[in-house]
């Protein structure tokens, strides 16, 4: 990427697909920005892995990653996200988040966030959570008359919403119809 350029990239993995995805983003000149996000929905026997290698080779670049995953049935999902900050890539800002919802006991999600930093004046963070649907939200919705199944669907939309907001309406509808 060239100085001052910005990349905004969003991945969507629909249920029923087993694919490994590998991507590298290279911030090679000063002042670039990369905003990368994605959602992956895994069900049945889906096997999914996302390997993202985000390299800050030049200083004063910013990167942000937000990945949200859901797994049900016997599905397995892996997020393997590496942030590399080269020696001399000062004033780097790199944020990474990966959140997963585990919907069945037999499903599994794994998160492998890695930071590899060789510069000393940087701001880097990463966070990963794995959770299940929130019982309080569930009860709140049911108490308003929203049937259990529909309440579960709304909770999934709620969970995915920070990524859904980035998508065109037709793709949002496609994703929501598959929840």
């Amino acid at each position: 990427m060239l100085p001052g350029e910005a990349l905004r990239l969003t991945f969507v993995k629909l249920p029923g697909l087993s694919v490994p995805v590998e991507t590298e983003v290279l911030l090679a000149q000063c002042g670039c920005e990369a905003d990368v996000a994605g959602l992956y929905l895994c069900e049945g026997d889906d096997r999914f892995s996302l390997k993202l290698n985000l390299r800050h080779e030049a200083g004063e670049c910013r990167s942000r990653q937000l990945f949200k995953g859901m797994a049900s049935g016997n599905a397995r999902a892996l997020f393997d996200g590496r942030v590399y900050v080269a020696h001399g890539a000062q004033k780097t800002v790199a944020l990474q988040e990966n959140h997963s919802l585990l919907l069945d006991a037999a499903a599994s999600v794994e998160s492998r966030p890695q930071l590899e930093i060789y510069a000393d004046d940087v701001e880097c963070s990463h966070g990963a959570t794995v959770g299940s649907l929130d019982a309080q939200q569930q009860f709140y919705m049911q108490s308003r008359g929203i049937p259990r199944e529909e309440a579960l669907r709304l909770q999934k939309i709620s969970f995915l919403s920070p990524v859904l907001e980035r998508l065109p309406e037709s793709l949002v509808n496609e994703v929501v119809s598959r929840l």
Partner: protein
Amino acid sequence: MDNLLEIRNLHASVGDKEILKGIDLVIRRGEVHAVMGPNGAGKSTLSAVLTGRPDLVVTQGSILYDGRDLLAMQPEERAWAGIFLSFQYPVEIPGVSITAFMKAAVNARRRASGLEELKPAEFLRLLKEKMAFVGMKPDFASRAVNEGFSGGEKKRNEIFQMAMLDPQFAILDETDSGLDVDALKIVASGVNALRSPEKSAIVITHYKRLLDYIVPDVVHVLKDGRIVKTGDRSLVEQIDRQGYEGLDG
């Protein structure tokens, strides 16, 4: 049948701790009952049992609502039958707008009653009318449910939802906590506008303040899982003067 709600010898536990230790309470159509009592008395547990919160276990007793066995009903079935709880701590649902949330709630109840879903224009008309009723600004409809709301906004949102769903039996669980006087008046007028000879309510509160605006027909004092005293509204004044000490029946 005059009785809308009949609670008989109700015992309920969370985990292995018994919280309600034998509640008897009958509410007739058209009546507003206040339930007062100190912290930890079991007031919120009572509201949770009535609405079917899954972490509570009823170990003894029965509840009849409109002649039906309430304890056999799912939380959403209770809502369809006209029960509404204004939560003490309303839950945030990021990414789900008030509009989407209420549309799901209103239409689910209509389907359960054998009615057609509201057409989008009809729904929006209802939404606007009820927003005006509780004094909500136009951007309210597109905000995510309770996300980033102030304490007062959350409580007003509960009353807004109550107005949208037009319940037959409303439970207000400390709806007055954290409200300033102006918000309290809005909430109270919202509740009072829904009073009718067919509808009933339980108002759970620590304080006299709310009951100055929503005047109850019957007042109960709950202490340590039991109703220790029942009276008319003069009991509110007595509690305000003396506190709960010495009110052991």
